[in-house]
C-alpha cells in the first residue's frame, strides 16, 4: 500500500560521507581539467566531482551502469545537475582518472564545466508530448554531436547554455538561454467540430486565445478562428483536442539567442529571436545544426574573454550581430505583441 504525502526521499540519506562532513564548509573550488571540479573544504578535505554528459532519455541499463560506476569509484554516491548531467562524487583523488577512463570506455563524455557547452536542457518532443512542433531528443543529439568539442574543453569565451523546447509552452525554458531552439507552428489550428462539441469547455477555449482569435460557433457547439489574428501559439490546442495544430509540412524551429539567468555582471535577459524558422529535417536537422554552429563560431571569433552571448551582443549591438552573422533581418523578428514597445529603438543612435 502506498503512503500518501510522505514527500521525496531525504537528501541527507543520499549524500556521501565527505559531503556530510564538509557540508557548508567548502571554501573554494578549482577545475583541474574539463569535467572535473575540485572543491576544497575548510577542514582540508577535497571533493572531486566528475561531470558526465547524459542523453537524459535513458534506459534502466544506463541507470544501473551509473550505479555500477558509482559503487566502484565513489561508494555508490552520485548526483545529477540542474542541466541533467551526471556527477560522480569522489573523495579519493586517485580514483578520478580511472573513473574517467572507465567512462570514456563506455562512451560517456566528461565535460560541461567552466567555459564550455553544457548539456542542452530539453523536452519530450515526439517521444511523449501531444503538442510538439519538432522533436527534442533528435535535435539535441545532432547539435551536441556537432558541437561536441566544446563540451569536453573549456575554450569558449564563456559558458554556453543551450535550451530546446519543442513547442511554445517552452518546457525547456529556452526563453533565457544563450542559444535557444524552439519548435514553432506556422499554421492556424484545424478545427474539429466534433471533438470540440464532445470534449471541450467552449468558454475556456475561447478565453485561452491570447489574441482573441477564437469566436464561439454555437450552431456547431464549436468555435471558429479569425485566421488573421492567429499566431499559432497552440494554447487553444492545450485546451482542446479539437484544435489540431501539428502540421508536418510547416512546423519547424526558430532560433533565439542572448538569454541568460545568472545575475553575474549583467542582469538576467530573455533570449531573442534571430531566425524565425528552419525546417524539420530529421534525423539530423542540418539547417539547425549549421545555424547554431555558425552563431557559436561568430561569437567565438568576436567575443572578449569571459563574455557570454548576451554580453557580447549587447556590447556590439544587435544590428551588428546581424551584420556579423549575415543572418537576414526581417519584420518577423520585430516584436508585435504586448511588450513590443520596449524593443523599438527610441534613439537616433545605432550602428550599421
Amino acid at each position, binding site marked *: 500500500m502506498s*503512503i500518501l504525502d510522505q*514527500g521525496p526521499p531525504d537528501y541527507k540519506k*543520499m549524500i556521501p560521507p565527505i559531503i556530510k562532513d564538509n557540508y557548508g564548509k*567548502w*571554501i573554494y573550488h578549482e577545475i583541474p581539467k574539463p569535467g572535473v571540479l575540485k572543491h576544497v573544504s575548510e577542514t582540508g578535505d577535497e571533493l572531486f566531482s566528475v561531470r558526465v554528459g547524459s542523453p537524459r532519455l535513458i534506459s*534502466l541499463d544506463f*541507470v544501473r551502469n551509473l550505479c555500477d560506476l558509482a559503487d566502484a569509484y565513489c561508494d555508490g554516491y552520485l548526483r545529477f545537475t540542474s542541466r541533467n548531467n551526471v556527477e560522480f562524487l569522489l573523495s579519493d583523488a586517485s580514483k578520478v582518472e580511472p573513473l574517467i577512463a572507465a567512462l570514456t570506455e563506455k562512451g560517456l563524455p566528461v565535460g560541461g564545466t567552466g567555459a564550455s557547452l553544457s548539456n542542452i536542457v530539453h523536452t519530450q518532443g515526439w517521444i511523449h508530448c*501531444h503538442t510538439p512542433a519538432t522533436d527534442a531528443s533528435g535535435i539535441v543529439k545532432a547539435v551536441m554531436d556537432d558541437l561536441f568539442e566544446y563540451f569536453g574543453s573549456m575554450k569558449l569565451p564563456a559558458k554556453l547554455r543551450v535550451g530546446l523546447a519543442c513547442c511554445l509552452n517552452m518546457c525547456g525554458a529556452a526563453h533565457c538561454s544563450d542559444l535557444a531552439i524552439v519548435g514553432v507552428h506556422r499554421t492556424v489550428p484545424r478545427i474539429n467540430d466534433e471533438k470540440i462539441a464532445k470534449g471541450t469547455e467552449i468558454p475556456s477555449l475561447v478565453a485561452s486565445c491570447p489574441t482573441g482569435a477564437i469566436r464561439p460557433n454555437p450552431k456547431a457547439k464549436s468555435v471558429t478562428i479569425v485566421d488573421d489574428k492567429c499566431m499559432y501559439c497552440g494554447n487553444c490546442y492545450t485546451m482542446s483536442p479539437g484544435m489540431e495544430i501539428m502540421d508536418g*509540412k510547416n512546423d519547424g524551429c526558430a532560433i533565439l539567442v542572448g538569454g541568460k539567468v545568472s545575475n553575474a555582471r549583467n542582469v538576467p535577459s530573455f533570449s531573442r529571436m534571430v531566425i524565425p524558422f528552419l525546417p524539420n529535417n530529421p*534525423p539530423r536537422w542540418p539547417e539547425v545544426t549549421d545555424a547554431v554552429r555558425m552563431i557559436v563560431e561568430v561569437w567565438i571569433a568576436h567575443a572578449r574573454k569571459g563574455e557570454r552571448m548576451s554580453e557580447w551582443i549587447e556590447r556590439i549591438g544587435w544590428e551588428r550581430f546581424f551584420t556579423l552573422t549575415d543572418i537576414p533581418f526581417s519584420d518577423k523578428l520585430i516584436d508585435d505583441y504586448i511588450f513590443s514597445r520596449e524593443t523599438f529603438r527610441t534613439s537616433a543612435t545605432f550602428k550599421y
Partner: protein
Amino acid sequence: MTEKKTPQLDELEKGQWPSFVTEIKKAAATNAASEDLLHLLERSYEDRIGHWKHGGIVGVRGYGGGVIGRYTDLPEEYPNLAEFHTIRLAQPAGWFYDSKALRSICDIWEKHGSGLTNFHGSTGDIIMLGTTTDHIQPAFDEFSEAGFDLGGSGSDLRSPSCCVGPARCEYACYDTLEACHNITNEYQDEIHRPMWPYKFKIKFSGCANDCTASIARSDCSVIGTWRDTIQIDQDAVKQYAADGLDIQDRVCDKCPTRCLKFNSETKELTVIGEDCTRCMHCINYMPKAIRAGKVKGATILFGGKSTIVQSAFMSWVIVPFMKMESEDDFAEFKDLMGRVWEWWDENGKTRERIGETIYRLGMGKFLRECELPPVPQMVFRPRANPYVFWPQDEIIK
C-alpha cells in the same frame, strides 16, 4: 527482435554524444512498449509530426496529479503504446542519490513500466516514461514503499528544486537543500492535490549565480544573498595577482557597479560596500580571495514563467532579504507563501500564473493585499506614467 527498420533513428546512433536512440533500443530489447516507441518515433521522423493524442487524465488514489496520461493516435499499429503514461517522482533535494535508491527505482520500473526514464524532467522530477493505466497504482504503491512519492502536475505546486548548495558549493548563502526539503514536505497537500488557478513552481538557488535558473523558471525564486559587505582576503588577492590574473581587467572592469578598486601598486583590492549589488562576479573570479558577507539569507522573487501566453516573465523582487537559517525563518517564508497563494487563488483566473495575475491587477494591489511593504528594490525604475490609483481614504472628502 523486430523486422521493422529504423533507418532515420539509426543515424542518430552515430556521433560522439551518447545516443537516446541507443537507450530506447536497449529498453526495447526487453520491453514491447519501448520497442513500439522506437518505431512510432521513426514514424514521426517520417511524418514530421508527433503521434500522441491530446491529453489524458489518469492518476492514483488520493492524489490529483503526478501522472501524465498519454495515448498514441495509432493504437492499431503500435498496440503497446495504446496507453503510455508518465509518472513523475519527486527527486531528493539537490538530485543526490545513492545507488541503492536508484536501483530500487529501476527494479520497480522494470516491472511496471517501459524501462525508460528521464533523469530528470525539466522541472526537476524523475520522469518514469511510459506505463499503462493498470500499472499506475501498483507502480506507485511500490515506489511509495521504496521511499518515493509523486511530484506535481496540473494546477498545483510543482516539485520544488534546488541547487547543490552547501552540499558542494562554497557560494551557498543558505542551505538550499534543507530549505527545499523542508518546504517541499510542508506542502505535500499542495503538490498532490491541485487547487489553484494554475501551476506554481518554486526553485531555490544558493546565490545570485542562480544555478537552478529560478528567475526564469519558477513562480517563486529564492536566491541566496547577503545583507552586508563582501569579505576580501588581501593575501589571497596578492596571490591571484602573482599568479597572473589581470584583476583590473577581468574583475574590476566587469563589476557592474564599478565599486571594486584594485591598487596596482599595493595589490590591494577594496570595495565600496554600499555600491555593490552582490552580483557574484568578483567572487566567481576569485573564490579564494572574496567571499560573501556574513549576514546571509535570500531574496524572494515572484512571477517567473515561460512564454505562454502573455509573454515570458522573469521573477521580480518581492522581499529583498529574508533570513533562511532556522525553522523560524522557514516559518516566515511559509507565512509569506500562504498569503501570496491565498491572494492568487482568490484573484487569479483559470490558467493564469501568478505573475500574470499581478501584472493584470497591479503590483500595488498585490503588495497591499499581501501586506508586503513596498521598497525601491522591487523595481528597476519607478513608473513613467502618472496613472496612480489613489487610495480613496487618502483623499480629502
